[in-house]
């Protein structure tokens, strides 16, 4: 099948480099989350037997990807390694971080455990630093109820600035709502305003100084702030991406895609 009938074709070269086959789907959804949050359960219930497993290219990190259809849109879903954080240098975290940054999924679902939100939100906040198209799936709502924990999803969504949906991945409860949010976000119907953490004064000053430099070095880069934070932290991968021009190239492609995307929506709307 040709890849010309999709919204995000220009990223496909990058996706293919990361070992994601780009046939037969319209949009890419990444699934992130802590270990033991039922991420795989959600993945299995979405894809059923339409999945295959393997390794990330060049890494001994397992990867699962599959497909599902919702509202006549075909989604490719990539299950990222379960991680507690995106800041460390373990292979799992590198893979997850690289995919979110360079693979540019249309939407990222972060699966969280309703019974230990605090720990899970640490990862959510880190994902929000990288991408703003995020839906938070609060899984294990049944277990939380059993343990006497009530989660106020509206408060959560308001604080995070992205949609939060309560689900029970094992029974499928709430999964349709989750997909509706994914649909709205990936089609551009819904817009998010993700929370970004402000650090200490000296840190903020350092970031503020770097952001314009990064924007000059890689014009139009959408999350210069995050790049600045990573550079301050000395992330070798991000340094390499910036030095080799991969970051600038990606950004240019992304702008083209955004234009092509809005044109396509305009055409679709006219029909």
């Amino acid at each position: 099948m040709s890849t010309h009938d999709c919204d995000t074709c220009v990223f496909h070269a990058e996706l293919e480099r990361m070992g994601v086959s780009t046939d037969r789907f319209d949009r890419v959804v990444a699934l992130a989350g802590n270990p033991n949050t039922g991420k795989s359960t959600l993945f299995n219930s979405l894809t059923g037997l339409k999945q295959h497993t393997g390794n990330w290219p060049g890494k001994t990190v397992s990867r699962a990807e599959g497909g599902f259809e919702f509202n006549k849109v075909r989604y490719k879903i990539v299950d990222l390694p379960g991680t507690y954080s995106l800041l460390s240098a373990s292979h799992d975290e590198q893979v997850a971080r690289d995919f979110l940054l360079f693979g540019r999924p249309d939407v990222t679902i972060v699966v969280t455990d309703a019974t230990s939100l605090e720990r899970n939100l640490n990862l959510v906040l880190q994902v929000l630093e990288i991408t703003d198209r995020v839906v938070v799936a609060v899984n294990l709502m049944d277990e939380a109820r059993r343990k006497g924990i009530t989660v106020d999803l509206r408060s959560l969504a308001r604080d995070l600035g992205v949609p939060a949906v309560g689900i029970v991945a094992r029974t499928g409860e709430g999964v349709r709502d989750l997909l509706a949010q994914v649909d709205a976000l990936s089609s551009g119907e819904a817009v998010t305003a993700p929370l970004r953490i402000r650090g200490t004064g000296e840190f903020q000053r350092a970031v503020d100084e770097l952001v314009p430099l990064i924007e000059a070095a890689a014009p139009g880069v959408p999350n210069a702030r995050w790049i600045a934070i990573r550079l301050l932290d000395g992330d070798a991968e991000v340094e390499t991406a910036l030095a080799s021009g991969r970051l600038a190239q990606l950004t240019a492609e992304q702008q083209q895609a955004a234009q092509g995307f809005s044109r396509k929506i305009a055409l679709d709307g006219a029909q």
Partner: protein
Amino acid sequence: MRPLLLILAALAVVVALAWRHWTHRVVRERHRIEDALKHLFDQEYRGRHASLTSLKGTLHLPDGPVLALVARMQALDLVRARGQEFDLTPEGERLALQVVRAHRLLERYFADEARLPLSQVHAAAERHEHSLSAEAANRLAADLGHPTVDPHGDPIPSREGDVPPAVGVPATSWTPETTGRIVHLEDEPPISFAQIVAEGLRVGQTVRVIERTPTRVVLTDGENEYRFAPAVAANVFLAPAPAHTAAAGVVRLPDLPDHVLAEITGLDDRCQGFSRRRMMDLGFTDGARIEPILRTFAGDPRAYRIRGTVVAVRRDQAEHVIVRPLDTATRGLA
């Protein structure tokens, strides 16, 4: 025809051997120069001067080769002689900083990531420091999260070659009965360093000097007492302790009784590298509530409730977590 072939073959062997010998000599000379530069740098950093004698001791070489080496380094404009002593030239200092940076980053790597015993870290770094390019050192620094000190407490030069000034006072001149943090353990001479490490002192540990006489110096961390001859104690450098470890009412996590809720006040500096990052990622940060809830047959590891999850940690890592108990009423299971 055949003799010619034989001669050619023999010639090839001779050339190959000579080439190997020559490259080997060049490499060995480079290593020696780098070791000498490192020594000169260390001496200058601690406000001393290197001499022929100290060089001989460090390089384990007799007079002749050391003299030749120094002559070679002078020819390369790396050192200047001033009477009996030597100083680094700017170029010498630049090279020295590169080697020192490589050495200390490698020590950090061997201590934190490869988890070699502290007593073997120095030797392992010695073996690899000459083959680590500046580029590779930068990558290593990034992978390690840009550490600023090595496991002995020495600062790691930045890639621009900046080194903060030496800090710390030898334990022999530290005010008795005041608490200090160990910031540096001098690894030369190796014999005193081995003794210090064998006694169990580590960089980052908080100690007090409880006795200082001309024959011995006694340090304590509250539990154990460490006795040293003054010559050895002079190799332990102390600086004022940061607030969280000196504060009253705090204990280390392994000392917190089961089912007692506490608040984390900090991770101490001895916990570095991957271990520190992983602990922080799991939520072991200041202000987190923590409660030991399970212990195994051997008493180690214990499992703690923290941020709504249960995490098991070994004792030697829990040792680095400083907590303040919140209530003394034990909350039993039933």
